[in-house]
């Protein structure tokens, strides 16, 4: 059979079975090594810059990266769990996830893209980041110094250092709340997000987590929807233009209205 010709610059390909092994492999290759999770971002990059990599470290054989389990009052989800799988598995405890994650990319990409990859990418217009921030998620990391846990809020503003590996997320199981997600997308399928908002209303506490333009998601809260909106208004300088501000406020209003309905 004809085998696709290998270019002289083909990177080495590794399938470690532990997070520590994966981190060590990446450390050995520095800037010329990359973790491969779902590949929905990395694979197009490989083809645009074929000489850029010496090593691909594929994370798919690390057993605990596929876990979805209840640990006390948290749910732990491994880094290699796909967006589709997370959306199905978490729907019972987080009903809003069905709508929220349905807007990520497209259904075929969601079957391969992973939670860990999404967190590492830290795209500002990310339904995943918005959801995780809205629900106070913590991110589990493995790096040169071993394992650590970081609130998602911290990661959104300070990118992961190259070689730090997301191993999973921990999300506290929420008490009953009413939640709704709204997103305004550019017209074509897979179009870039203009703004999104995830509203949660519980007795005595309302939060709305928004993102828009190039601004990472931010969570505003108050004792009522109007207080949450006032808190959003106080953050108007965070957004890069009047248009983005308008979209963000509109998304927040709609999400709050639908959550409260």
């Amino acid at each position, binding site marked *: 059979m004809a085998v696709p010709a290998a270019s002289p610059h083909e990177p080495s*390909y590794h399938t470690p079975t532990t997070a520590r092994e994966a981190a060590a492999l990446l450390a050995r290759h520095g800037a010329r090594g990359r973790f*491969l999770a779902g590949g929905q971002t990395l694979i*197009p990059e490989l083809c645009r810059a074929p000489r850029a990599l010496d090593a691909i470290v594929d994370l798919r054989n690390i057993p605990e990266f596929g876990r979805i389990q209840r640990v006390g009052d948290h749910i732990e989800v491994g880094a290699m769990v796909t967006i589709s799988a997370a959306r199905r598995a978490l729907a019972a405890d987080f009903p809003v996830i069905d709508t929220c994650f349905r807007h990520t990319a497209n259904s075929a990409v969601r079957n391969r893209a992973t939670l860990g990859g999404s967190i590492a990418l830290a795209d500002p217009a990310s339904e995943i980041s918005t959801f995780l921030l809205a629900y106070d998620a913590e991110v589990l990391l493995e790096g040169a110094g071993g394992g650590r846990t970081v609130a998602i809020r911290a990661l959104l503003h300070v990118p992961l250092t190259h070689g730090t590996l997301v191993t999973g997320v921990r999300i506290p199981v929420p008490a009953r709340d009413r939640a709704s997600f709204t997103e305004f997308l550019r017209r074509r399928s897979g179009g870039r997000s203009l703004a999104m908002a995830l509203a949660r209303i519980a007795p005595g506490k309302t939060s709305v987590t928004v993102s828009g333009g190039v601004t990472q998601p931010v969570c505003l809260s108050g004792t009522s929807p109007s207080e949450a909106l006032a808190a959003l208004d106080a953050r108007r300088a965070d957004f890069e233009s009047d248009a983005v501000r308008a979209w963000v406020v509109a998304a927040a209003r709609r999400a709050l209205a639908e959550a409260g309905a």
Partner: protein
Amino acid sequence: MSVPIACAVNGRDVAANVPATARLSDFLRDTLGLKGTHVACGDGVCGNCTVIVDGEAVRSCLTLAAQCDGRAIETVEGVAEADVFPAIRAAFLRHNALQCGYCTPGFVTTIAAMMRDNAREALTDAEIGSRISSVACRCTGYVSIVAAARALLGRSE
């Protein structure tokens, strides 16, 4: 570096050594000669290259062949031999759901996966719309494809 893979393609065992960066789309078309999987954009945007891996629709241009070790892959050629196909073919013809046919394999695999999922647990209208939206068509304007898909899923148009 050459990566050994052992997978199933359309029910047949395949063993090969592939370059690390070889895409599944190229492996299927050029190594296995399965030309039914069409590559249009090559960048993961259009969905024409959609195949089914372990029961899920994925973009074969956004999948490395190396990632497919141990996986079961079904292309449009495989779907054409499967139980779902006669109904798919009939619906596409009845509803005029193709013109040039270039995107058709991407829709056929996507819809086959939807039909099998729907048989286990009914998909919501929103989910049907979302999954159909994952493949681009330049000819039909989509209305006929959506009609065919909804008919296959037992829904009114």
